[in-house]
């Protein structure tokens, strides 16, 4: 059962999420550009996926029965790359090549560049639809793998998202689970100022999805929600994960300036100090 999670395992996941955040800071410092806030904000969820939820094999990324994890808002790929490297898809050292000439780690993820990526993404709004296509293929092939699509809240201003939401609801795609990074920021500011999404939950309910809302930094709560989603047989599930953009680095948290910015050396040093202090705290618990 997905929901079986010992205290020991939970602590291990929390440490791994912290490590992933440290890798994100190091990668982005090295790259000199990239998206910091969303990457830090989704560290707990990516860690839960790669180290507990996903049925996958990093040494055989094309395994036909693997669960599919699709990242729709491709700009937060640093956190995906970090957790993929940590789980053995490629050497952690390679993270330093992010956004550089010849790298497999493109600035926005490209499926055929790096084994283990399911889709190419970056232009927003396209992930749920591709997840639907993969979920339909699973049904035709009588495969029982799960399709998980990660989206962002700002991305929901794209019409394609609602086209996909209608289709998945109508077709009762129960093998499809969406996780929305609800962090309330986008490039031009607060999502509710740029273009209000609330009542977000009611919108998805009206589109015939099963809706759960959780704290995106509570790994146990998130894993329990995934477990619940697996039990829903007649609808797709959406988990609205409330997250703090920039989570773990005090001066980045909830500041939309950090949406698309990388830290300089001094900022990275401060960020690493904070993250290492958090690491020590978790270790002492």
């Amino acid at each position: 059962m997905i929901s079986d999670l010992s205290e020991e395992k939970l602590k291990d996941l929390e440490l791994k999420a912290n490590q992933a955040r440290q890798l994100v800071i190091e990668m982005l410092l090295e790259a000199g550009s990239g998206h910091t806030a969303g990457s830090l904000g989704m560290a707990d969820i990516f860690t839960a996926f790669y180290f507990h939820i996903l049925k996958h094999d990093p040494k055989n990324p094309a395994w036909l029965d693997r669960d599919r994890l699709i990242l729709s808002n491709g700009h937060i790929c640093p956190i995906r790359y970090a957790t993929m490297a940590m789980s053995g898809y490629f050497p952690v050292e390679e993270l330093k090549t992010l956004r550089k000439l010849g790298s497999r780690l493109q600035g926005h993820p490209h499926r055929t560049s790096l084994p283990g990526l399911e889709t190419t993404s970056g232009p927003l709004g396209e992930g749920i639809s591709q997840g639907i296509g993969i979920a339909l293929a699973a049904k035709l092939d009588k495969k029982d793998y799960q399709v998980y699509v990660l989206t962002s809240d700002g991305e929901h201003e794209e019409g394609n998202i609602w086209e996909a939401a209608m289709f998945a609801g109508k077709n009762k795609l129960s093998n499809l689970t969406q996780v929305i990074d609800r962090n309330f920021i986008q490039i031009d500011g607060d999502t509710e100022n740029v273009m209000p999404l609330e009542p977000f939950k009611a919108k998805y309910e009206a589109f015939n999805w099963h809706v759960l809302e959780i704290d995106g930094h509570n790994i146990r709560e998130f894993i329990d929600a995934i477990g619940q989603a697996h039990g829903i047989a007649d609808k797709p599930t959406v988990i609205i994960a409330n997250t703090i953009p920039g989570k773990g680095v005090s001066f980045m948290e909830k500041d939309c300036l950090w949406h698309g910015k990388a830290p300089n050396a001094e900022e990275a040093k401060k960020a690493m100090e904070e993250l290492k202090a958090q690491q020590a705290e978790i270790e002492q618990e």
Partner: protein
Amino acid sequence: MLNPDLKLNQNLFEATVEKKATREGFGEALIELGETNPNVVVLTADLSESTKVEGFAKKFPERFYQVGVAEQNLVSIAAGLGISGKIAFATSYAVFSPGKNWETVRTTIAYNQSNVKIAGHHSGIMTGPDGATHQSLEDIALTRVLPGMTVFSPCDAIEAKKATLEAAKINGPVYLRFTREKTPVITTEQTPFDNQIQTFWTSEKPKVTIFATGYLLYQALLAARSLAEQNIPVLVANVATVKPCDEDTIVELARESGKVVTVEDHQVAGGMGSMIAEILAKKRPTPIKFIGMQDAFGESGKSLELVRKFQMDEKAIEEAVKNFS
């Protein structure tokens, strides 16, 4: 004369010549593919009748997806199927797909290298009374600029069927361009279909080579016949595969005649004629005239009235050849 090696329709110039829309050939091919390949799936955006996928939908309902009027969703669902072992045919009108949803096609199908076949229907001013909003004159340009995209523009229903069957064999993105109206059947089952440009009308010592794509090939053949009666020999070549293009044949035919006219129901900017011009500019600079839409929008009218008005018909082609000094 008509090239005897290509086994073309012998009734081509008779008043009784059979007429059939290229979209009919597409629909027939889909049913054949459905029967022979369980991985073939079909999607449409509320246009199952006019894109001729009804037959497939009835026979293989479990492999047919209705996405509603949502062309971005159409191609991105197809992209997901195409990277999961399926051969996905996504059908709509060309103005909407790959028009309206072009960036989604670029990212999720072309760059993503997904095994999707985009069927763009109702292309060209030939779409007629619906008017300029529905007459796609840009789709060849939109698709041929995408790396890895194969672009087929068949001349008749038989060739459309062959192009559709061929598209299923290609592991990667393909664009198929179809026409609404019934047009003369030029080829036969025995006519070869491959990536090579075939010379449908041959002459000794040709003065001009006419490269035509789509149903307008028929107008080019009518012009060639009329010109032959006036002792003006020309070649007429069928460009069914716009990309990857058959550079060697294009250069060879241009060398043989020394002058080129291109014919397409599409904007002259960025279309098949531009493709020919790019190759000739690089490999064998040759004087060239472009027949097609001259940077304008169409309007409502009967199909052939529009073809005449916008000077893509037999007479316009003939004049272009005769005025080539």
